[in-house]
C-alpha cells in the first residue's frame, strides 16, 4: 500500500460525504437564498432584499394559517403527551386481560397509511355529524401522534426500576407525590422526545389534515401545498427560512438539554 493510494482513498471518502450533504442541504439553501431575491421568480437572483419578510407578515391568509398550525400543534401535543404518558405508565405497570391486544392496536396508527387514516377520520366525523374545523383537526392530530408518545415514553420506562416508587412511598410519599417527584422526572427525557416527535408530526402533516380540516382552519402545510399549484411566492420562501431558523434553534436547545441530562445520569 502506498501513500498515493491512501490519499486517493481519503479524497474519495471526503468527496462522497460532501456530495451527500450537498444533496441534503442544497434545496434548503436555495430556498433561503431566494427568500432574499428581489425578483418574484425563483429563477434568477436580481438583487438582495428583505421585503418578502415584510410581505409575509402582511399576508392575512398566511398568518392565519400559521396561527391555526400553532394552535393545532400545541393543543395536540399537550393532549397526546398527557394521554400517551399515562397510557405508557399504565401499560408498563399493570398487568391486565387483553393487554397484548391493546398493545398491538396502539401501533396501528403508526403503520397505517395516512391516507387511510384521513379518510376514516373524515367518515367518522361525518357519521357523528361533527362539522370540520380546528377541533376535528386537533383530534385527528392527537390520534396519529399519541402512539408515538406512548412508544418513546415506554422505551424510557423499560429500564425503570419499580422499587424506586416503592422506596418513595416507603419514605412517606403519596402516590401523587411519587409520580411527580420520582416517576415523571426520571422519564422526562422520554416525554420530551415524544412531545418533539408529536410536534414535528403535527407541524408538517398534510394528508390527514387535508381530510379533517374545515374552510377556516387551513394550516400552514395545506396553505403552502395549495399555493404551490400557482407557483411559490417569495414570501413563502421567507416563511420557510424563518421556520428553518426556529427548528435549528429548538434543535440546539434540545442538544444542550440532552447533554445536561445525560451528564447528570452518566452511568
Amino acid at each position, binding site marked *: 500500500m502506498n501513500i498515493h493510494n491512501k490519499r486517493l482513498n481519503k479524497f474519495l471518502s471526503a468527496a462522497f460525504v460532501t456530495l451527500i450533504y450537498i444533496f441534503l442541504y442544497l434545496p434548503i439553501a436555495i430556498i433561503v437564498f431566494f427568500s432574499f431575491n428581489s425578483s418574484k421568480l425563483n429563477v434568477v437572483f436580481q438583487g438582495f432584499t428583505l421585503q418578502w419578510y415584510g410581505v409575509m407578515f402582511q399576508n392575512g391568509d398566511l398568518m392565519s394559517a400559521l396561527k391555526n398550525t400553532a394552535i393545532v400543534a400545541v393543543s395536540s401535543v399537550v393532549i397526546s403527551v398527557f394521554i400517551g404518558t399515562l397510557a405508557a405508565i399504565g401499560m408498563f405497570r399493570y398487568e391486565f386481560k387483553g393487554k397484548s391486544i391493546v398493545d398491538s392496536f396502539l401501533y396501528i396508527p403508526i403503520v397505517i397509511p395516512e391516507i387511510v387514516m384521513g379518510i376514516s377520520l373524515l367518515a367518522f366525523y361525518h357519521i357523528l355529524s361533527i362539522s370540520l374545523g380546528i377541533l376535528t383537526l386537533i383530534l385527528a392530530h392527537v390520534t396519529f401522534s399519541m402512539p408515538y408518545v406512548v412508544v418513546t415514553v415506554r422505551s424510557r420506562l423499560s429500564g425503570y426500576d419499580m422499587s424506586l416508587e416503592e422506596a418513595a*412511598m416507603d*419514605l*412517606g410519599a403519596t402516590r401523587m407525590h411519587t409520580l411527580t417527584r420520582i416517576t415523571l422526572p426520571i422519564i422526562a427525557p422520554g416525554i420530551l422526545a415524544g412531545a418533539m416527535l408529536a410536534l414535528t408530526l403535527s407541524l408538517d402533516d398534510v394528508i390527514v389534515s387535508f381530510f379533517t380540516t374545515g374552510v377556516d382552519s387551513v394550516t400552514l402545510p395545506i396553505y403552502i401545498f395549495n399555493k404551490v399549484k400557482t407557483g411559490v411566492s417569495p414570501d413563502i420562501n421567507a416563511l420557510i427560512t424563518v421556520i428553518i431558523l426556529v427548528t435549528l434553534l429548538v434543535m440546539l436547545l434540545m442538544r444542550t438539554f440532552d447533554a445536561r441530562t445525560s451528564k447528570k*445520569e452518566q452511568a
Partner: protein
Amino acid sequence: MAQVSEKVMVELHNVDKSYGDNKVVKNLNLQIQEGEFLTMLGPSGCGKTTTLRMIAGFEDVTAGAVIIEGENVVNKPPYQRNVNTVFQNYALFPHMNVYDNIAFGLTEKKVNKEEIRQRVGEMLSLVQMDGYETRRPSQMSGGQKQRVAIARALVNRPKVLLLDEPLGALDLKLRKQMQVELKHLQRQLGITFVYVTHDQEESLTMSDRIAVMNNGVIEQIGPPDKIYNRPATKFVADFIGESNIFEASVVSINGDNLKVIFETGGAEVSASGFNQDEMVYISVRPEKLKCSIDAVPGFNLRGTVKEHIYVGSISKTIIELPNGQNLKMSLLTGTPLLPQGENVWVYWEKDDTVVLHTNEETLYNLIEQVPKIEVRV
C-alpha cells in the same frame, strides 16, 4: 444487646399470602420485640421477602393481621406506616444527589429546611459519608450506595427498619465489614431491625433471633446458638451449617440414653421424648464427628477415609460409609489426618447429636417437590 425490651413492636398474626393458588406464606405468626435484631432466613422462594414486603406495605396480606406498635396496619399504604426499608438494589433516586436522596422522607413530612440540613448531616456522619452530599448515585460504589440507602431510611427515625438482603450485591470482604457496622448501628440506635437473608452465616453473626423459614412457614425461631446447636427440624439442621444426617430407628431406651440402629450400623445418642421402634433422624455436626482406628464402645459405624479437603483454618475429611453415604468431618488444620483409604470407626459424644422426629419427613419430601419460585411483584 441491652435494648431488647419486652414490648412487641411488630406482630404477624395468622398471616396468609397467596398468588392465585400458590400459597407463599402460610398462617405465619411472629412477634418481634422492640430493639430486637430479627433475621428471617431461608432459601429463595421460602416467603421471607414476601413477609418483609407485607410488613412494609408493598404486598397485601391474603388473610391475617400485621400489627405495628399495637395497631393493625393491613389497610394502610406504605407511606402511612412507621417503618422504613433498605432495598437489595439500594433503590436510590438516580435524578437526585445524596443530600436530596436522604432528605426525601423529611421533605415529604414537611420538616423545616434547617432541621433537614442538620439531620441529613448527622446521618451522613453516622454512615461515614460526610462530604458526599452532592454526589449522584451513579458516581458511587455499591458499598457507598448502601450506606446512603441506610441513611435515607434511618433519617426518618423509623420504629422498625426492614432490610431486604441489603448486602447481597457486595463483595465478601465489604459484606463482612458492613455486617459488623450494621450490627453496631442497630445497637447504638436501638431500632428494631427485621433483616432478610439467605446467607446463614450472616444471620448467625448479626441476629438476636433467627426465624428459619421454608415453604412459607417458620420452621424454627430462636437465638443463633440455639438454632445452630439445637435445630428443631431436619430442614433447619441441613440449612444452617453442615450436618451429617442418619435415618435411624430407636432400639432401646434407658433414661435419656437411646440406642439407635441405621442402615450402616448403630450408635448411642442422648435424647428424650422418643419411643421404642420410632423412626428418627440423627444429626451430627462435622466438627463433632470423630474417628478412630480402634472400635469405640457403643458405636458400630465403619467407613473409609475418602479424601481430605483443605479449607483454610479447617480441613474437611470425607468418610464414605458402606452404603455410599458420605460423612463430613472437620478438623482444625494441623491436626494429624488419617491416611486416605484407611478403614476407621466413626463415633461422637452422646450429647453432641440432635435427634429429630421423622414426622417432619413427609412434609419435607412434599416441600422438595413444590417448584421453588421466588415471587416478587
